């Protein structure tokens, strides 16, 4: 594993690997996380290194529980790391706010992945605004190498301030790769101490005052931090204040516009609390300030407030508030890049600038470029489940509604899931929404209500809503799409699995046992048997009360890993092509990427490069033209 190479070596790491390395170089003892993009790979890397380094890693049931565990380690004096995505911090926020108040002992680093442009997220939350609300200091790396540096230093900073420290990493750092010169990994030597006399208590307004003092101390410390750096001429009239990867975009924009002699760049690595004295020192000499940060105008607002307070009224500000720093979604939305900053800088300086002309591909091609919508993988059991639910809704005929949740199956809102899902919000929220909708019966709402959620989401946040539904006699069908893993983020284990993050045996908590333990009826079926599943959904929809239908089938990506696949092919004699009344059902409607259409032969075809061998299409083909050849020894 490259990330475990020896100190002094220069290697290519992803941002997430660099973060993991940074934590190990800081001597982390305890790591907990719930997986979320863009930070999902960090605990996995640490888990692989656990045996060698001696730290503990767990995939917790959710971010709040992860943070609580990490806090415990910190209370006992150990260094701990808790990893999550921005939305995960919201889940943990109740505890995070309290933890800020109580403070901590051993270095506690909260590594949060923000996803500007929402590449793999519901929204592009800016964690800095949350940290400001709960008073937690924030470091913000601009590159892969700095992600390692900051993670490592954040532990010391946390111990210095006796406060958890947030390292806010955006997707363009987490998922980027860069060269990193590795530091030494010290042995994990600290031993936990938490005696009867120890107190970590939050109930006091006095503690708030203490927290404010800690933040003031942080601001003072940050003013001298090496994570903040100025580059540019000694005297300049224009200053770019940049954070995160936008530091590099700003530098390149300045270079491309040949303004190195005129424009200074202040790179801010400590973005909360703002290092006021450092900022003021740079603001006093310039006329105009340009802000390069993602996503919210966070530094921008802080700097403008600071300038107003200090009476620096000669400054002009160029950023999201002024509309100068704006991508295709407008200011304050989406990611930045070199081109956006080039345009902003040229605008601020009054330089001629024209956006690069995007080649007219459609014109040179002579047709429109087809869009490529996201698609559930070939063989994905969710596709089978969605087709069964879609069929069941039509067969039932009462206009049932389908409530979605967060996971791969969120794609059920798109064509790949037949546009079934009507609401998608946050982890586990579908169950609560379904419960609420079903209570509307008393006002005349008479449609059946179905909610779908995945296994990992079930453990994460659905249990309270199910208990609530049971107690209040809600009336809906909860379909648990159990693919036996946390698929979307890279197949992390959850309490339904046999082994933990570290490969140790876990005491499996089966969903059906939990559900039945709540007093809810729970049937189990295999979604690959689409027809049977559709009937079962119809049956269940007719029965009263909150009930759960568990559709269990392993994620197709996991199921085929390291195993020989069943081979699926189309018998060109049996397939009638366009003469069949199926109207190309397999390739045109069912939508599995492995079901393609052979234009030359005028027949359906299987793309063997992606086919997982599930055979669901074979069962749906009205002509039995799709043939499944099972691996030897696995029946027919």
């Amino acid at each position: 594993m490259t990330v475990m190479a020896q100190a002094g070596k220069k290697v290519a790491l992803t941002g997430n690997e660099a973060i993991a390395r940074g934590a190990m170089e800081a001597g982390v003892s305890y790591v907990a996380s719930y997986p979320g993009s863009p930070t999902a790979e960090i605990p996995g890397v640490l888990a692989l290194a656990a045996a060698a380094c001696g730290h503990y890693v767990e995939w917790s049931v959710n971010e709040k529980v992860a943070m609580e565990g990490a806090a415990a380690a910190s209370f006992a004096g150990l260094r701990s790391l808790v990893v999550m995505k921005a939305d995960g911090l919201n889940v943990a926020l109740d505890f995070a706010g309290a933890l800020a108040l109580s403070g901590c002992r051993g270095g506690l680093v909260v590594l949060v992945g923000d996803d500007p442009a929402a590449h793999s997220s519901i929204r592009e939350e800016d964690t800095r605004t949350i940290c400001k609300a709960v008073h937690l200091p924030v470091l913000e790396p601009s590159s892969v190498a700095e992600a390692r540096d900051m993670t490592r230093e954040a532990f010391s900073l946390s111990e210095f301030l006796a406060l958890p420290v947030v390292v806010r990493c955006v997707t363009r750092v987490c998922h980027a790769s860069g060269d990193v010169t590795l530091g030494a990994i010290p042995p994990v030597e600290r031993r936990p101490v938490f005696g009867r006399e120890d107190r970590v208590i939050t109930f006091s307004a006095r503690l708030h005052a203490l927290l404010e003092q800690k933040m003031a101390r942080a601001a003072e410390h940050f003013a001298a931090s090496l994570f903040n750096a100025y580059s540019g001429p000694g005297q300049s009239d224009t200053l770019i204040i940049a954070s995160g990867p936008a530091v590099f975009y700003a530098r390149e924009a300045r270079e491309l516009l040949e303004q190195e002699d005129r424009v200074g760049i202040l790179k801010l690595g400590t973005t909360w609390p703002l290092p006021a004295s450092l900022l003021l020192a740079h603001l006093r000499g310039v006329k105009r300030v340009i802000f390069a940060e993602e996503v919210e105008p966070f530094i921008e607002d802080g700097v403008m407030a600071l300038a107003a307070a200090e009476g620096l009224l000669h400054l002009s500000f160029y950023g999201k508030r002024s509309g100068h720093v704006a991508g295709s979604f407008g200011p304050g939305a989406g990611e930045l890049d070199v081109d956006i900053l080039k345009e902003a800088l040229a605008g601020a300086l009054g330089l001629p600038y024209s956006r690069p002309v995007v080649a007219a591909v459609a014109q040179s091609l002579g047709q429109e470029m087809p869009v490529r919508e996201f698609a559930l993988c070939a063989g994905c059991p969710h596709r089978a489940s969605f087709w069964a639910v879609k069929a069941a809704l039509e067969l039932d005929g009462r206009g049932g509604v389908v409530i979605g949740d967060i996971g791969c199956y969120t794609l059920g809102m798109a064509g790949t899931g037949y546009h079934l899902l009507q609401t998608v919000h946050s982890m586990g929220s579908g169950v609560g929404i379904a419960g609420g909708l079903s209570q509307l019966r008393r006002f005349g709402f008479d449609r059946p209500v179905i909610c779908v959620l995945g296994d990992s989401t079930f453990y994460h946040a659905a249990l309270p809503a199910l208990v609530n539904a049971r107690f209040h006699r809600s009336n809906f069908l909860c379909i648990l799409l159990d693919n036996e893993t946390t698929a979307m983020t890279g197949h992390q284990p959850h309490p339904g699995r046999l082994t933990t993050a570290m490969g140790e045996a876990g005491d499996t908590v089966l969903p059906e046992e939990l559900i039945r333990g709540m007093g809810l009826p729970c049937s189990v079926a295999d979604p690959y048997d689409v027809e049977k599943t559709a009937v079962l959904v119809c049956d269940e929809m007719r029965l009263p009360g909150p009930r759960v239908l568990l559709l269990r089938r392993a994620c197709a990506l996991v199921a085929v890993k390291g195993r020989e696949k069943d081979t699926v092919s189309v018998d060109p004699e049996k397939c009638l092509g366009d003469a069949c009344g199926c109207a190309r059902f397999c390739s045109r409607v069912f939508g599995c990427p492995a079901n393609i259409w052979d234009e030359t032969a005028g027949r359906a075809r299987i793309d063997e490069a992606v086919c997982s061998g599930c055979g669901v299409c074979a069962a749906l083909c009205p002509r039995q033209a799709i043939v499944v050849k099972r691996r030897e020894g696995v029946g027919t």
Partner: protein
Amino acid sequence: MTGQESLRQKILDRGLCTACGMCVNLCPYLGAYRDRVAALHPCGLADGACWHVCPRSGLDPKQMDLSVFGRLREDHALGCFSAIYFSRAVSKAPGAQYGGTATALAALALEAGLVPAVAVTGGDALAPKPVLAVTREEVLAGAGSKFTAVPTLAAVNRGQKQGLTGLGLVGRPCQVAAARKMAETTVPGYESTVPPVALYLGLFCFFAFAPEFYGFLSCEAKAEWVVRSDIPPEELVVVTAAGEQRWPLAELKPLVRPGCHHCFDSTAEWADLSVGSTEYDPDWNTLVVRTVLGEKLLALALERGVLEIRPYPPERLPLLRRAALGKKQRVLAGDRELSGLALDFEYEAAVLRQQGGASGDGNGTGR
């Protein structure tokens, strides 16, 4: 348009579907749950077998007579037939109603190798389902009247998928008509060299109930119940552990499948053999022999001692004819378009002219 969209607009959405099941399992776009056939997804095709095989999408009785019997009917009440009897199984299957004739004939056809499997309506009365019976036991398990519509023909199509053709069918009149239409279809991809059904055992049917019927029963009868229905007479009899209860049919009318009010055929006129109650003797069935194949199967049944028959009492015939004609005349008096019938004036006039009591050609003595 003669495809799925027409089926949806003109049949399914208007509640005219008989849930025969003939369109189910032909393609991935239509499905059935209990007594409801539904379009699962628009197939986008302008022409489809689903429309052509539907017993409500256009049925020309003359054409059907010609293709099944090679001649036109003389009796507008009961259609073409060669003989009519009272019949009963020598050894009646448990659960079978009246004389158990249909079950006995289906089991015999299977055992004698006339058909490789028989599509029957299995399950219990509360949860009936299409079954493709390949053993005698499976046929016997299907014995007993079901009061709701069951898409039994979906099992025929499933059999087709498994390579089973030339099947037996025990079905309602609409199902016999649909399966006959299927055998004749010329829709590309569905035209069959071997007809899916080779033996048609039709059941008398004056209407089917909607599933709410069972809700009504469990509310009203309030007991463990066994149903014996005498239809068409004017009442429903429910025999429960506590005794016998009766409801006038008029009270049950809202529970009848709406499509059944537009049905022209109560005696499975295009079957090989039609079986019904006698409205007279609960231990016997009415058996109408219609085709040569029907005659052969009856002969075999008698030869093997599976069935016993006795002459149809001449004084009962007018009653049966009146019931069958009455249904046709009510359809003609109603919204004609909803019946899906293609009738010429002459034919219609012939039906209206007939009197229940007047003699047709059938009096139990042959054609």
